[in-house]
Every structure is written in structure tokens, then in C-alpha cells.
């Protein structure tokens, strides 16, 4: 495998409603900033790939307009996935492995404020058997949470502690949407939203975007004093029907972690794309995270969940800490689909 690193990361302030800012207006300054940090111009970038969703935007071809934020002239080598930007990063990483290009620009973006996101996500479900019942995303997560609570030693208190820690961590993240000091006992006194989930177990609704620049080999070393090298990256998918899956585990994360080599060395930190508190518990187990691993120093998806950018942001957050010398080895994770159906795992290291 060719050495490929993350050399630049920016993200938009994560907000409940970006208001009058459209996707181009959100992305344009971010792309400029990410490129400036990388010292590359768009024309020097070998490949560009983005992730977004038409249903999130409520319009077909929503990614086409986003090209306007780049200055794609002369024309650029470019692709798009209808997935979280983390998978766009994967496609770009593959392109760099092929070896024809040395750098890539990757971005993910979405405004969840535009629609009723809990209902929009119901359209991800089987269109014959399930979507016509309109089960919303929080209800599906609640089914998973109860399955976990009733089959493991985890309690609602453990879930509240996940929420409290993530939002405490988010205090040092100026881009976070939700942060602060929460007492898990006080959180447990709150009513259920969809039992067994309370509001704090669920992600905020977020508008946002994230941008990453990848570079290979010597170019990465020239750009960054301490590139965050991608030592392994893999993603796997599970069956779609919730009634077929064991919702209390994440076998696709386990498999992706094995392929990405998570266990090949000690980890300093993990950035997990766990929109719901119980999903962090499932992912911790799936990744075999030991005591002492700093989980979601950014606050994770419970502090800001810009759908289509949140997974990419996890990779960017982990990389930033490696480049900043705060960690030597990290795992970043992204998820897609109902109840963690599809998962991506990325292992990052300093020199």
C-alpha cells in the first residue's frame, strides 16, 4: 500500500440551521481554507470526491451546484458518492493507491435543517415492507437500544454517561453545536423521547460540512510537519432488514476493524460516528477499545451530527490530533444506514 496521509482538515461551524447560507456559501470558504492549509491549489489537486444526499437537500442533483464552490476550471477529475464524505475519502484513497495522482480534495456536506430528518431517513428502508409504515430514525435506534440494554450489562446510566462525556469533550471544540457540563443523574431524570431513548441519547440536528486534503508519500511530508498517515481503511455492510440482524453487535465494524488493522498497535484515541449513545457502546465493543483510549475528544456525533459530513469529520478530527502531536495512533469511524448498517474504519498514525 502506498503511504497516504491527511494533511489538511476544515469544518463548518456546526449549527442547527445555517439559515441563509446555501451549500455553496458554506463550502466555498472551507474549501479555500483547506487548500490553503495544504499549500495546494485546486489545479494541483489530482482528484476530487464529495459525499452528499439528494433527499437531505430535498432536490435531485444537489451535489452539482456544490461544484460552484470549487472553481473547477479548467475541468477537474472528480467523482461523487451518495454517502457520507468518509466514503468519498475512501474512493479518493483508492485513487491515490492506484498511483496516477498524488493528492485529493474530499468534502461532505448537508443541511439536515431543510427537511424533517427523522422522516427523511425513513426512506432508506425497504420500500415494500418497511418504508410504507414510516418508522422514523429515532424509533429504529430505540429498538436497537432496548435490545442492547436487555441483553447486556449496559444500563441507561451508561448511555447518559456517554452523552455527558461527549458534550463535556465538546467544550474544547469551537465548532461543536452542543457542549457543556451535564450530570448523568440529572439527564436520567428527563422524560423519554422514544423509550428507552431520552433526548440526550440522540444527536442534534445539524447543518454542516467538512473538507479534507489527502496527499501521498513525499508530497504529504512536504506539506505537513506531521502528516496523519492512513495505515488501514476498510468498510463493510450488513443485511438491511433489522429483523435479520443482531442489533446488539456491529459485525461489519468488527470486520472492517480487523481488515484495517485496528488491533495492530495501541490506540490513543477514537473518533466514533455514533449518533446515539448506545451506538457508542456497541462500537466500543466492536472495535475492542480498551480503557484509557480517549473516545471522541471532539464531542462526536452527539455534539454535532452534520449528516453526510459527520463521518468525514471524525476522520478529520482524529487526523488533526495526530498532526498536532496529541496522539500517535487513532481510529476513526463512520456509519451509514439504519442502526449502524454500514461502517467504515480508518486507522491513522503519526510518523
Amino acid at each position, binding site marked *: 500500500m502506498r503511504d497516504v496521509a491527511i494533511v489538511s482538515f476544515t469544518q463548518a461551524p456546526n449549527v442547527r440551521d445555517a*439559515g*441563509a447560507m446555501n451549500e455553496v456559501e458554506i463550502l466555498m470558504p472551507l474549501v479555500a481554507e483547506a487548500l490553503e492549509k495544504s499549500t495546494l491549489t485546486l489545479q494541483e489537486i489530482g482528484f476530487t470526491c464529495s459525499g452528499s444526499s439528494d433527499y437531505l437537500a*430535498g432536490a435531485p442533483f444537489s451535489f452539482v451546484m456544490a461544484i460552484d464552490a470549487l472553481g473547477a476550471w479548467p475541468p477537474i477529475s472528480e467523482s461523487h458518492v451518495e454517502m457520507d464524505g468518509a466514503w468519498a475519502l475512501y474512493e479518493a484513497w483508492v485513487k491515490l493507491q492506484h498511483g496516477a495522482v498524488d493528492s485529493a480534495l474530499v468534502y461532505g456536506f448537508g443541511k439536515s435543517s431543510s*427537511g424533517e430528518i*427523522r*422522516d427523511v431517513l425513513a426512506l432508506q428502508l425497504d*420500500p*415494500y*415492507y*418497511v418504508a*410504507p*409504515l*414510516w*418508522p*422514523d430514525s429515532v*424509533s*429504529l435506534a*430505540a*429498538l*436497537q*437500544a*432496548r*435490545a442492547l440494554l*436487555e441483553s447486556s450489562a449496559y444500563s441507561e446510566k451508561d448511555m447518559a454517561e456517554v452523552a455527558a462525556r461527549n458534550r463535556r469533550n465538546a467544550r474544547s471544540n469551537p465548532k461543536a453545536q452542543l457542549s457543556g457540563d451535564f450530570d448523568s443523574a440529572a439527564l436520567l431524570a428527563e422524560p*423519554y423521547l*422514544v*423509550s*428507552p*431513548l431520552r433526548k440526550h441519547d440522540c444527536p442534534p440536528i445539524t447543518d454542516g460540512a467538512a473538507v479534507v486534503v489527502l496527499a501521498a508519500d513525499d508530497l504529504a511530508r512536504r506539506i505537513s510537519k506531521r502528516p496523519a498517515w492512513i495505515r488501514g481503511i476498510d468498510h463493510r455492510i450488513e*443485511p*438491511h*432488514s*433489522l*429483523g*435479520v440482524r443482531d*442489533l446488539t453487535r456491529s459485525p461489519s465494524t468488527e470486520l472492517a476493524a480487523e481488515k484495517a488493522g485496528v488491533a495492530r498497535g495501541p490506540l490513543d484515541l477514537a473518533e466514533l460516528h455514533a449518533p446515539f449513545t448506545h451506538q457508542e457502546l456497541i462500537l466500543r465493543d466492536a472495535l475492542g477499545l480498551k480503557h484509557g483510549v480517549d473516545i471522541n475528544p471532539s464531542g462526536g456525533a452527539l455534539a454535532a451530527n452534520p449528516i453526510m459530513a459527520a463521518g468525514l469529520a471524525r476522520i478529520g478530527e482524529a487526523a488533526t490530533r495526530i498532526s498536532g502531536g496529541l496522539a500517535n495512533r487513532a481510529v476513526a469511524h463512520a456509519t451509514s444506514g439504519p442502526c449502524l448498517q454500514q461502517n467504515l474504519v480508518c486507522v491513522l498514525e503519526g510518523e
Partner: protein
Amino acid sequence: MASPPEQLLSASYALEYTYTRSVGPVIGRFLTGLRERRIEGIVGSDGKVIVPPTEYDPVTGETLEDFVEVGPAGVVTTWAWVSEPRRGQPLDRPFAWALIRLDGADTALLHALDAGDESRVSTGMRVTARWREETTGHIRDLACFEPEGA
């Protein structure tokens, strides 16, 4: 169009369409069964009975075609209590979403459970199908499930 405050110019709109979905032989047979108030599953490549039936094995992708009748009663494997139903959901009063393993099935079906109150729902409880008055061959022919003996 709503008149906006200074700076912001926004308006609501609906993405609305009634899709006509051809269903193919397997889903078609299941829905035809529902119309006749019968629930059928399909036998997977490992012998397990999958409900609702898929045209393919969920793990191996192999084509499937052996049907067996299941239910109409079964067991709740997990559930979530909804105190505020949303538009389009099967019930407009508080209900539980439940994964239900029907008798004779090895996988669970997602549907609504009309139990009246959260305290009456538990994992492992027995439930049975409640049919819509008029069945047409649609997943919503199952109006919802209800506690057995209710």
C-alpha cells in the same frame, strides 16, 4: 410564499409523489397472502424462515423460492415506545414499534404494536396480527399487532 424577515428568504415545499411499485413474484406472493389474511415466510439457504420473505438470502445472496405459512401470532424481540406518533405511522395514538418473531419464523418483522400503555409492553410478550377491515395486498393490510388475548 411566506414573507421573510430581513435577509432570510425561505419557503416551505413538499416533495410529494405516489410511487407505483411493481413487486415481483416473492413480494407479490407475500402481499397476495396478506390480502387473504395469511402471512408467509420464505426458507433461507440455511433452512431458516425469513419473514417478510426476501427474493434472496439475506446473507449469501442466493435466490430463494420455498414459502411457508407463519404467525399470525408471535413474540416481541425488542420494542420502542412512541408517545407522539408521527405522520404516516400505523397508529395515531401512543404505540410501540416492535420487532416481532412470528411463530414459525426465524427472523423478526417490524410493525406497530397497539398496547395502550408502555407498561403493558415487554420483550418476550406474545402478540398477534390485527387486520385492516379491508385488505388490498399491502404491508398496511396488517393494521398493527396487539397483545395476544386482548
